[in-house]
């Protein structure tokens, strides 16, 4: 597996516009974007379930653009678990091998191995309806693993799980990837999943790539306001020229709540009134309403001012992101 390039456009609505990227061997690439950004369409084009209007998909040295899905040597994990309800777990895991007429004894040993890896040995004879949500998800991972494909494609595999299971299965996927080292494209709308799982992240919006880079790159040096706002625990604070004096050439200044400090009124760059405090336990989010802005600051528990107090906001220099009028990063 050498690389994978893909670029095409689709007409009315253009679900994807000239999307290109490469995937290097053993990499875990996360494609992240809001709903409707074309993430799933992209993945389905790579899998061959949809045909791009233009552009091509390469896996290794092969151009697979016109090959049917089954001939591309990829395995896909779907948002819905997509297990066959009338088959046992072991038959479900064996399905991709049986579909390719693999000899029975090879199938058996491969199923045993995949089941052992995902801790499913005890439930092999059950049916999907008898399993918990987390177990079903692990079965769909096992079914992808059993084929030993060149690329894994994962379409929001955690979306249908509840919060506590999500963390567990995320860890499972990370461990599985480390163990197998198979190149993986992982699609999600959740920025936390993207930050914690991805070696590299592709940020998609309206079918176009906004930025590609490592999690640290994207967090520390977002290419535009959208990326700055999309990644991070809280919405980023944005200030335009009505809110404060900006350096020349700068149209918008973005500072994350975690890099925003409360000061005495007048001491910071801007000032306003505290209108709301959200206590999160060890820390709290303080919402400040200024004359031409609304901003949030993260403070430690016990350091919250009273609601209604006038406060200033100060920003530590390296964490201030400046964008020009055409929404491009400065510096």
């Amino acid at each position, binding site marked *: 597996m050498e690389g994978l390039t893909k670029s095409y456009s689709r007409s009315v609505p253009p679900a994807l516009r000239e999307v290109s990227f490469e995937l290097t061997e053993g990499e875990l690439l996360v494609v992240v974007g809001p709903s409707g950004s074309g993430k799933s369409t992209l993945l389905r084009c790579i899998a061959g*379930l949809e045909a791009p209007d233009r552009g091509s998909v390469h896996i290794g040295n092969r151009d697979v653009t016109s090959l049917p899905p089954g001939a591309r040597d*990829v395995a896909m994990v779907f948002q819905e678990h997509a297990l*066959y309800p009338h*088959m046992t777990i072991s038959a479900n895991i064996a399905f991709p091998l049986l*579909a390719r007429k693999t000899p029975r004894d090879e199938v058996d040993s491969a199923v045993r191995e995949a089941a052992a890896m995902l801790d499913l040995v005890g439930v092999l004879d059950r049916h999907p309806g008898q399993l918990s949500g987390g177990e079903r998800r692990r079965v769909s991972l096992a079914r992808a693993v059993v084929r030993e494909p060149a690329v894994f494609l994962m379409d929001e595999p955690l979306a249908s799980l509840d919060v506590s299971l999500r963390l567990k299965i995320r860890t499972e996927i990370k461990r599985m990837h480390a163990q197998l080292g198979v190149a993986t494209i992982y699609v999600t709308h959740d920025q936390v999943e993207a930050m914690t799982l991805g070696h590299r992240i592709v940020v998609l919006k309206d079918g176009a790539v906004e930025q590609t880079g490592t999690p640290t790159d994207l967090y520390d040096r977002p290419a535009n306001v959208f990326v700055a706002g999309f990644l991070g625990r809280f919405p980023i604070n944005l200030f335009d020229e009505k809110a404060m004096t900006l350096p020349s050439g700068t149209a918008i200044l973005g500072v994350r709540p975690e890099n925003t400090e409360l000061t005495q009124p007048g001491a910071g760059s801007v000032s306003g009134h505290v209108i709301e405090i959200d206590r999160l336990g060890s820390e709290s989010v303080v919402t400040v309403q200024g004359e031409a802005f609304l901003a949030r600051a993260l403070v430690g528990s016990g350091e919250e001012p009273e609601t209604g107090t006038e406060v200033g906001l100060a920003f530590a220099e390296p964490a201030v992101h400046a964008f020009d009028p055409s929404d491009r990063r400065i510096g």
Partner: protein
Amino acid sequence: MKGSDRLAFPFLGGLGLLIALPALAAAALAFTEYSGLGAPRFVGIDNFERLIGDSGFREALGNSGLYVLMSVPLRVAAMVGCALLLHRRARGSGAARAAVYMPTVVPDAAYALLWLWLLNPLYGPVAGIAAALGADTPSLLTDPWGARLAIVMMGVFQIGEGFVIALAARRSLPGALYDSASVDGASGWFVTRKVTLPMMAPVILLLAARDVVLALQTSFVPALFLTDGGPRRATTYLSLFAYRQAFRYFKLGYASAIAVSMFVITALAIYAQYRVAKRYRLLG
């Protein structure tokens, strides 16, 4: 909302009065001699004793049984086959679905006329094609087995309602299963055999049970129209036999006994259908 439950009782009570009780009374007719004019005369189980000894009844029972054995598998296969071929929303598939549905809603009389002409041994197109191929003229309506086959064939094209049920069942299968199978490299036939048919099994069984029940009904009109129960009584099904006893010979008591026997067969088929539905949780 609970109030509407209370409204159900008068309706069901009416249904019971109008259908269930009279049905029992009609069953009682089976133990009488009755011409439709005088009062029924009680004769005990005479009618049923006569039925057992009546070679005409046994023949009709055999004909109906043969019809079920020949027709039901073909019809169910056609329903499910058409549903699998035409479930996609593609160009022309709407027209194709309409074409499959059409023969079912053609008026029975028109449909029978059409087949009468199709199978005409002198001028019909079937005979014409056979002649063009140098084969003997098929004697479909004059040969007992030919006539049976012709009536089965007529039924095979009237699968509209079952087709719609099978179509809905196929469409309710989740698309992700098929996407997944496709990425896994499974062939269309492999997926049909391992995924589609097993998942549609409950509906297929239901369609088959329903068709057994319907077979007792649907065989009546074509037999009356096309073959008049012949040749050599090969298409005198139970329904036609009962009809003749009642409305040609005015033996209403005897006809009731035949109707009771048909009802027992129907009830058994419905019970089988109910068990299938219950087992696969298709009913509440």
